[in-house]
């Protein structure tokens, strides 16, 4: 759980850096070149299969553990107290499944359309052949307020999931220290806020462009 979670956290950071290229005002030159590289480099391909596997593993383990834990509790108090733990920490499976639903939407919209060859082709400077024009697809998608809205919901879920998950992963691995744990907690909150926020900037910016 903690290892797959931390892997996903590292992936997400790289994914963000790549996607920020969408904000360049170059008609998608940089982003399309990057997208071609990411979908054709054998090393990246290998890593992406690893990623699918880890998402699957993380989801399956998470849902099984959450179901076991729910049955180990058995009852609910008739007067529940919300005071002793953060809401996110008690709803990780729900938040995770929201993220998963978002991922299906996300992959269906961009990755699947590219794989099925439904995208137009454009020339880029870096290659002497035409590459799939993912940039246009993304730009069109982000004109649709429903798609932008569902992205924002997905990112809010991601914020809550990470607001607990980041520091939780360290505790699970037994890394708790008087001096460093507050630092990890701070870094976790920073990550949980900055990364979804930066992802959110992309559709919002492209929607209003």
């Amino acid at each position, binding site marked *: 759980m903690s290892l797959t979670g931390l892997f996903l956290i590292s992936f997400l950071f790289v994914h963000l850096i790549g996607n920020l290229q969408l904000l360049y005002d170059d008609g998608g030159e940089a982003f399309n070149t990057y997208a071609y590289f990411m979908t054709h480099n054998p090393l990246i391909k290998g890593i992406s299969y690893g990623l699918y596997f880890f998402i699957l593993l993380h989801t399956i383990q998470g849902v099984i*553990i959450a179901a*076991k*834990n*729910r*049955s*180990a*509790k*058995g*009852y*609910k*108090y*008739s*007067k*529940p*107290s919300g*005071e*002793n*733990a*953060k809401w996110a*920490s*008690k709803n*990780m499976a729900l938040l995770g499944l929201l993220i998963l639903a978002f991922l299906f939407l996300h992959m269906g919209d961009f990755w699947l359309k590219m794989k099925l060859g439904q995208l137009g082709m454009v020339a880029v400077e870096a290659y002497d052949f035409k590459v799939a024009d993912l940039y246009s697809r993304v730009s069109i998608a982000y004109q649709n307020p429903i798609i932008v809205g569902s992205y924002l919901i997905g990112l809010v879920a991601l914020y809550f999931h990470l607001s*607990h998950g980041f*520091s*939780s992963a360290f*505790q*699970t*691995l*037994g*890394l*708790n220290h*008087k001096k460093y744990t507050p630092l990890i907690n701070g870094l976790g909150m920073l990550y949980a806020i900055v990364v979804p926020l930066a992802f959110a900037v992309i559709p919002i910016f492209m929607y209003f462009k």
Partner: protein
Amino acid sequence: MKLKLKIWRQPSSEARGRLESYIVEANEHMSFLEMMDVLNEQLIAEKKEPVAFEHDCREGICGTCNMVINGRPHGPQRGTTTCQLHMRHFNDGDVITVEPWRAKAFPVIKDLVVDRSGFDRIIQAGGYISVNTGQAPDGNSIPIEKDTASEAFDAATCIGCGACVAACPNGSAMLFTSAKVAHLGKLPQGKVEHVARVKNMVDQMDEEGFGNCSNTGACEVECPKEISIENIAMLNRSYMASIFGANK
């Protein structure tokens, strides 16, 4: 002060339970248990079945006075057992809900009394050190660093009440188990059997049907002895060591 109590009544483990309402006249100097005594005397005078609840020392050290008061194990006051909670923390006219610990591994025996023998079996699985009894050893024959002694002592203050399990949304016994493991494993006398102890106690914990820790931290907030989840991190480290075959 006049209080309205909603108390979980369940005649036996098989029977279905429900909340019943009572009015009780208390004063603010009473402890919560004394207020419950007043209620029970009232019920006995009315020839009704008194509320079953556990209590023993009434000084915060035995860990039996377990009830969930307004959704919080041992009530609203931090670092306090129910017997040390006083009615001055409530107001005249309050409605107070009182329920037993809730977890699959802690089945209700009657009313507010639950079966915590799962904890005993976790202790039997490894919560001891194997030494021959005899004369008390010389107190200073094994020098122990102050910090280590303090950490071990803090962990040793766990009274085995089970509020951690009651507070945990997963019904996990990790805080209790980790307190025992840290209390023994931090000291030289307990280090010898540390890895085997961790494995055996965790296995027993799972067998009893306690849930898994998901680091919500609710346990350390409700623990009357303020045991820290740093102990859980130590337990996790030691458990990994026991799986990967380290000797330390």
